[in-house]
């Protein structure tokens, strides 16, 4: 049994010197050419909420998926209206991964997201409105079902309505049913939407 090394020498290698834990070096390391250094710096800045805008700046130009993932995670922890506002810009990005990472990060946040995202329900771009609905649909905010019902009443675009119907399949309450029925009248010739509305009403009623 010599193969299993008895008592592996505790720390496998001497640890790299603790990365400059002072804020200035962490901020500088956010722009290191090494992704691992950028990830380490971002992670270490979790406990520095005043660094949130610097993290947002990095996210604006970051292309490495692993660094982006860490930046998003840290920004979820540092949730604030300012962070939300900076993230929302990426909903218009051409980069699908950045867009979806942004949606997921906003969905994880707690209290500050709804007012900002609500404004996007009037955005001229229907895809941005869909993303807004996707975000609202995942929040724990009890205000969201009513916002989604509002979308059913006023939204002209079929795919945005479909996204709201889909979200209501999980969070809808019986007071959404009337708006769902009205939407069916409005888009009666659209088989998918009719199907989605029926499904959602069933999920709300419980069968």
């Amino acid at each position: 049994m010599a193969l299993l090394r008895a008592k592996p020498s505790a720390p496998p290698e001497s640890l790299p010197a603790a990365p400059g834990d002072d804020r200035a070096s962490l901020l500088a390391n956010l722009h290191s050419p090494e992704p691992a250094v950028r990830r380490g710096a971002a992670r270490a800045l979790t406990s520095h909420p005043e660094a949130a805008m610097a993290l947002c700046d990095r996210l604006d130009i970051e292309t490495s998926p692993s660094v982006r993932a860490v930046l998003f995670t840290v920004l979820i922890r540092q949730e604030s209206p300012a962070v939300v506002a900076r993230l929302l810009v990426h909903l218009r990005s051409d980069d699908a991964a950045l867009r979806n990472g942004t949606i997921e990060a906003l969905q994880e946040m707690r209290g500050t997201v709804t007012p900002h995202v609500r404004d996007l329900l009037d955005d001229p771009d229907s895809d941005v409105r869909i993303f807004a609905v996707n975000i609202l649909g995942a929040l724990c905010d009890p205000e969201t079902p009513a916002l989604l019902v509002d979308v059913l009443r006023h939204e002209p675009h079929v795919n945005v309505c479909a996204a709201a119907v889909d979200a209501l399949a999980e969070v809808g309450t019986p007071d959404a049913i009337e708006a769902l029925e009205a939407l069916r009248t409005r888009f009666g010739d659209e088989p998918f939407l009719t199907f989605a509305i029926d499904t959602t009403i069933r999920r709300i009623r419980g069968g």
Partner: protein
Amino acid sequence: MTISARQPRSPPTITEDEYAKFCEYFYRKTGIQFQDTKKYYVERRIADRIDKTETESFRDYFTFLRFQASGEELQHLVNSMTVNETYFFREDYQFEALVKGILPARTHNRSQRDPIRIWSIPCSSGEEPYSIALSILERWDQADNWDIEIYASDIDSRILNEARTGLYGARSLQRVPPALLSKYFLSRGEDSWQICEDLRNSIDFSLVNVVDPMQTRRFRNVDVIFCRNMLIYFDDVARRETVEMFYELLSPGGFVCLGHSESMSRMTSLFIPRKFQDTIVYQKPSKAE
């Protein structure tokens, strides 16, 4: 109807549509997927939580669960839906994948001076890291050619001491073939066997809180992480932080093994799913930055 004391309630009925809604939500939040055959089991536990939370119906309960910002009720639900038991060679197909797929992949074109590092977290009372050791010794024909370091960590110091002591009853050992039992264990009285000293000494046990970066920093260049049935108990953000930490500690091309009802797909896209011996394990890209 006049107001009266609450009637003893019959279990609330949960319709097909409510069940489907529940399963989709629960899956999204935990990664745990229920088969249709589990419906009765799941319903019983939901009914129990409806009772404990004093909600009136499935609909009320679901709204409470869905909009609770603290996520506390979801934790209660996860605890009630999962059985946290451990025994030797539990989910053995993963140890099979370790010796047939993962270790051959990790040792291909590699210097034998470079030790193989395996980390079991949470290791609980030790069945998992010892099963890893036994699988390597008994089922990997290359074992003698490599230095293999097995690390085992848990957040619970009491259970970690049990792991170090290595005393097990018949229930833990039910999957251990008699030949292995007599080769690696010593009888310590009725229904009690102790794993041999060599094996106990070969594993590095440590107290680790996985969400504390200072405590996980000593693990570096890990080849395989076994992390089974722990992340289901974490909230979404802690889960992200943990798998991102795994990414950091693994060597490029290293693997993560999760429990059979778990999937990395709910947590991150940083790893590549790989199929070995009918099980899916997750690999850090070998060209990872």
